[in-house]
């Protein structure tokens, strides 16, 4: 059943967020700390666990894959509701941060790959 996949995803999502809230509280913050990342690790582990026991059918997987495929469209929708006008007032910050990042990372890649014999 497709819903099993989506329900598994929902369960991991909620558990991750709850853990994130708990970590946040224990660090003295009201914010969620790493909830999404924890949810992802939960999903990877659970998928591995269930797959090994043959408890997760291909039909169930489509219930997760659909949402995974929707992530770019969701990000596009997210982009459409950003406060771009306010961001542009920030000016060249985004451009410089991006260029600086790519330059710094390129140097690291080049250095590490030159170590390979």
């Amino acid at each position: 059943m497709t819903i099993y996949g989506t329900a598994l995803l929902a369960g991991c999502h909620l558990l991750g967020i709850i853990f994130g809230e708990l970590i946040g509280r224990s660090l003295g913050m009201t914010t969620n700390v790493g909830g999404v990342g924890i949810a992802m690790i939960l999903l990877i582990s659970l998928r591995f666990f269930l797959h090994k026991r043959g408890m997760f059918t291909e039909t169930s997987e489509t219930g997760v894959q659909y949402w995974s495929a929707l992530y770019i469209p969701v990000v596009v929708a997210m982009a459409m509701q950003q406060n771009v006008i306010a961001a542009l007032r920030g000016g060249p910050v985004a451009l410089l941060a991006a260029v600086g990042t790519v330059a710094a990372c390129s140097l690291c890649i080049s250095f590490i790959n030159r170590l390979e014999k």
Partner: protein
Amino acid sequence: MLTEILEKVSKDNGLIMAFAVVGIITLLSGFISRKLTLGRIQGSAIAILIGLGLAYVGGKMTGGSKGLADVTYFGGLALMGGNMLRDFAIVATAFEVHPEEAKKAGWIGAVALLLGTVVPFIVGVLIAYAFGYRDAVSMTTIGAGAITYIVGPVTGAAIGASSDVMALSIATGVIKAIIVMVTTPMLAGFLRLKTPRSAMVFGGLAGTVSGVSAGLAATDRKLVPYGALVATFHTGIGCLLGPSVLFLAVKALV
């Protein structure tokens, strides 16, 4: 009468309307990607840029802070692109990671991944600082955006960044992805992109899945899976470290 009906229908079916609008934009950006950039710039990156452009138009039209979602017909975008569905879809992408293949990526992939999280973050934070952002939340959000355009808003939402800083953070990530896509084939020699191992290092450090997969595809198709495999961990690790370790580190320094 027609406008009245349209208004009512789009209001009662906000999310459905959003699906249709995003679908049309994706179709359009796929066309632009293939015909105008010859596949050099990935459709998803163009779609995001169009989205940011429309957010600008929406903001100009309404004077609101939610971009196109403030315009009558497009209110459903706020739900589709809101925190709930965004995080749900991002968690779902973890499904594409195969643990047994990940093990083969080995320690060098992990090192590159960690460097690829910390180096962009530091550069982003320093530039944010240089431009007058002195609060830990804004600096962390912009730094996280330099990791990927997903990590930026996820981190920003978690630590309570303002919408304009979030937009700046997304813009940083999108610009970074586009630079990686466009410059990778040109920099392939300098980066020594020849072997699967070098592609894994690249995937870890260059970050965004879209940037890495498009950049490698334009360089050497055989290298794509190796780079993408490591890059798929990027968003997860960024989302884990961004609002936690990295935010606390910045907070401690400010």
